[in-house]
């Protein structure tokens, strides 16, 4: 598979709205990026503001090649993301990408597992897969605003919340063994808190189901140059999330 050319896209903001407490959804016009983007890949967004320097890495949450639009979600965590909430329709936003390697999108029935902001890149995956179901987890019903995006893209949704306000009460991975035991999934794709991904991978391994994980790390460039997003592979190699990932086979990174 030839690597797509990395490029800096000067995009136009179409919409930038708050979708939940502290979580925003931004849609930009970026025809070339929309063409090239694959689920699991990410972009580096340049938020301009006093004192801000580096770009912000965000997973691509959707790409419509026909409309020429790309979607991203972000949680307001610091100065950069707070500043990003101020971008309005018509504003220009510099976006570098697509970067990294994405999920396996070949045929098969996929179970997507995700929690928190991890549900952004897997939303794009759900939209590109022929057959998939989703296991979505959150602390409470309010955090699961994601269901409206997953419902049209999946054949079934399985939901857990820590407080039982929606779906099954308990941790997301608690219902995973039961789901996998049905034998109907060819593989699993997970993105969420690291502990959730590790647990998901372990359960998949026990049941012999291949599992892809999407990792997140602080990074400066996203191009393999700054070497800040290092992780160790299970066979002792130094890998870099931006170039070798962000999507890895579970066994590459979790022992």
């Amino acid at each position, binding site marked *: 598979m030839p690597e797509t050319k*990395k490029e800096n896209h000067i995009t136009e903001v179409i919409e930038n709205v708050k979708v939940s407490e502290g979580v925003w959804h931004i849609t930009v016009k970026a025809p070339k990026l929309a063409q090239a983007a694959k689920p699991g890949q990410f972009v580096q967004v340049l938020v301009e503001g006093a004192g801000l320097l580096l770009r912000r890495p965000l997973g691509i949450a959707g790409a419509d090649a026909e409309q020429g639009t790309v979607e991203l979600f972000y949680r307001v965590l610091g100065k950069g993301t707070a500043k990003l909430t101020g971008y309005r329709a018509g504003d220009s936003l510099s976006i570098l990408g697509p970067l990294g390697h994405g999920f396996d999108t070949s045929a098969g029935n996929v179970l997507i597992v995700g929690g928190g902001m991890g549900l952004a890149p897997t939303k794009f995956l759900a939209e590109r897969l022929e057959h998939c179901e989703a296991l979505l987890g959150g602390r409470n019903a309010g955090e699961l605003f994601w269901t409206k995006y997953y419902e049209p893209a999946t054949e079934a949704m399985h939901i857990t919340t820590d407080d039982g306000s929606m779906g099954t009460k308990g941790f997301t991975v608690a219902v995973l063994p039961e789901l996998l035991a049905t034998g109907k999934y060819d593989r699993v794709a997970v993105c969420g808190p690291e502990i959730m991904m590790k647990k998901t991978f372990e359960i998949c391994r026990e049941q012999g189901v291949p599992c892809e994980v999407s990792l997140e790390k602080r990074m400066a*460039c996203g191009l393999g*140059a700054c070497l800040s997003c290092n992780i160790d592979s299970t066979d002792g190699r130094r890998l870099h999330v931006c170039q070798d990932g962000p999507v890895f086979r579970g066994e590459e990174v979790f022992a």
Partner: protein
Amino acid sequence: MTYDPRLAVDICGIHMNTPIITASGTFGFGEEFADFVDLERLGGVMVKGTTLLPRRGNEGVRIAETPAGMLNCIGLENPGAEVFLKETLPRLKKYNMNVIVNISGSTTEDYGTLAEMLDVDGVAAIELNVSCPNVKEGGIVFGTDPVAASAVVRAAKAHTKKPVILKLSPNVTDIVMMAKAVEEAGADAVSLINTLMGMAIDIRTKKPVLGNITGGLSGPCVKPVALRMVWQVAKAVKIPVLGMGGISTAEDAIEFLLAGASAVVVGTANFVDPSVTMTIADGIAAYLDEQKVAHVNELVGALQA
């Protein structure tokens, strides 16, 4: 390719199509930026710091953003000189760029050994990193002691025919004294500044942000300090000065040239805009037009003070 002859310079016998070099540790081996930059148009690429043996670098958080800058404590993660020579260097041939290898040693002898290993076709020059603030052994000692730094220069010079550039640390009391010492020891050029040692604290956890506690500060916030040091050093030495520290625009680059740098080195800005070096080259050309200056060399040290 033919390039604007007004920007072409000769530094230590190396022909450079522009006086714009990329800094070690900010540009990989150059190839990572091939989608964004005409690598041949650059004056050179100072490749990621290379050591005798492979290094895994530091554990924990390696970068932190700071106001108009960033801290890093990568810790010289690199595949080692042998892998660089066998795998990386042959791959870089097709780009037709000046490959300047930045080397780091734990002992003075290491620098000699590395210089000899790298005395091969495809390497344009050697840059001695004697000022990495992020490794425990060696590093900073060589960079802050004029006797130790001079010994490193002699060790390298004795084992290579390539030009030897010494990268100066700003974390010293008197950078001019350091520059003069290494010039006398035979350095063909000096590059400055390396990062300024700094730190950041997470007040919620009351812990340092960086895994290594301290790290090197770079980016626009260090530019005035770097510019001052380049100006001081350029006045004091006869060898070429390669100026770096926070250069992000053509205007920044021109300031360094006026202060006496024969060429400029761009670092952190590559992380923000991977094609920034091309924008800087275009901007310098436009400045030559505007100022009716025939050649970029005429700007070097043209500060009227």
